[in-house]
């Protein structure tokens, strides 16, 4: 058999196998093979990811910056609590705190991430039995994103900065309400804020809560990030601001999924 014929013959066989796999993707056969591959590669992926995080040790300046970020997060949390207390006192109303159960999940991959060039658009985390699509992913009190796809071993997380994420949020100090929109490449926009509302650089943005009747969705009071710049044009209907996440996800090895 001529080499060219051999090539075409092997190509046809492989193409048929690949197309069959594509057709069987949603059946048990496809997911079974996927799970087996993930089972084999999961420890190797974790090793590669963790070794890459340990290549560059944190300097004192980075540690100090991290502490500042933690303090800012604490401050924002206190401001939210203070506002909540005031509102409760005003309305003579009390509510029981909703218990937020968290499921720890190890990060195994960061799609669309090139160190020094681009920020990760999402995370691949190890899935557990209780995880579901649309479940918020947090680190401490900071919202990182939400689960967009899940299978038996892995869950795909879209970060707040990814361009398919949007939800309502408010500023911690001034209470200006707007919509958080991921812009891709690590950029977050706090849009649709009324011109009459007050935005300040350095103010924290927290979630207003988009929890459904059965307790699913993003709870209120989670920190989204810090306002870094404001775009206010008197001729526009709304003002907007750029928001920066407080946590560097590339440094994390474990995140938490929020259950009901």
């Amino acid at each position, binding site marked *: 058999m001529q080499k060219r014929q051999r090539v075409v013959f092997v190509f046809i066989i*492989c193409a048929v196998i*690949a197309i069959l796999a594509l057709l069987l993707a949603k059946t048990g056969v496809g997911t079974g093979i996927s799970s087996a591959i993930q089972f084999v590669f999961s420890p190797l*992926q974790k090793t590669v990811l963790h070794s890459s995080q340990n290549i560059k040790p944190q300097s004192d300046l980075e540690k100090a910056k991290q502490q500042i970020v933690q303090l800012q997060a604490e401050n924002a949390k206190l401001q939210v609590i203070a506002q909540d207390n005031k509102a409760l006192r005003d309305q003579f109303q009390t509510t029981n705190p909703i218990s937020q159960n968290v499921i720890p999940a190890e990060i*195994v991959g960061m799609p669309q991430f090139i160190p020094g060039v681009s920020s990760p658009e999402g995370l691949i985390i190890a899935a557990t039995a209780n995880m579901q699509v649309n479940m918020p992913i947090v680190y401490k009190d900071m919202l990182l994103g939400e689960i967009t796809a899940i299978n038996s071993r892995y869950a795909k997380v879209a970060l707040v900065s990814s361009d398919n994420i949007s939800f309502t949020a408010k500023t911690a100090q001034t209470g200006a309400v707007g919509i958080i929109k991921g812009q891709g490449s690590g950029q977050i926009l706090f849009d649709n804020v009324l011109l009459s509302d007050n935005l300040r650089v350095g103010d924290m943005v927290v979630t207003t809560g988009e929890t459904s009747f059965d307790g699913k969705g993003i709870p209120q009071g989670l920190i989204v990030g810090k306002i870094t710049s404001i775009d206010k044009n008197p001729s526009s209907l709304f003002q907007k601001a750029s928001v920066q996440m407080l946590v560097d996800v590339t440094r994390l090895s474990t995140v938490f999924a929020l259950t009901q």
Partner: protein
Amino acid sequence: MKLIILFLGLIFSILLETTIIDLPFVLLWILLFVVLTREEWVFIIAIVAGFILDSLHLTVFGLHAIFFVGFCLLLFLYEQKFELQSMSFVLAMSCIGSILYLLLFGSTNFVLQVIFTSFLGVAFFLPLSFLFKNHARSSITPEFS
């Protein structure tokens, strides 16, 4: 020994592409497999690597596999017309391949990634081409004898 280096490189590229660096390393490595070995079994490597990437990227199972198999066919079709083991061919094919790959699977920093991938392809190819100089010749010779 030479093939072991290629296989280890491929496994390492799969791990890199699915964890810390989002560049089409696996595509590059399949290109190198075709260019350096010129054997039909590279199709099997391509399909398996595609299945692994689909599983680890959580994309539709079989999508990467189809792309890689098609890419291999494209490379083999050019075998008669161009000298595969040349820097210009590797540069051109890694550029074309990465453009198609990034268009299909979506990515940020498209242009930068294509440029970076093309140069990486050449950077990987140059040292490996010395190792495989005799391998490719010996695999071709019986065909013409």
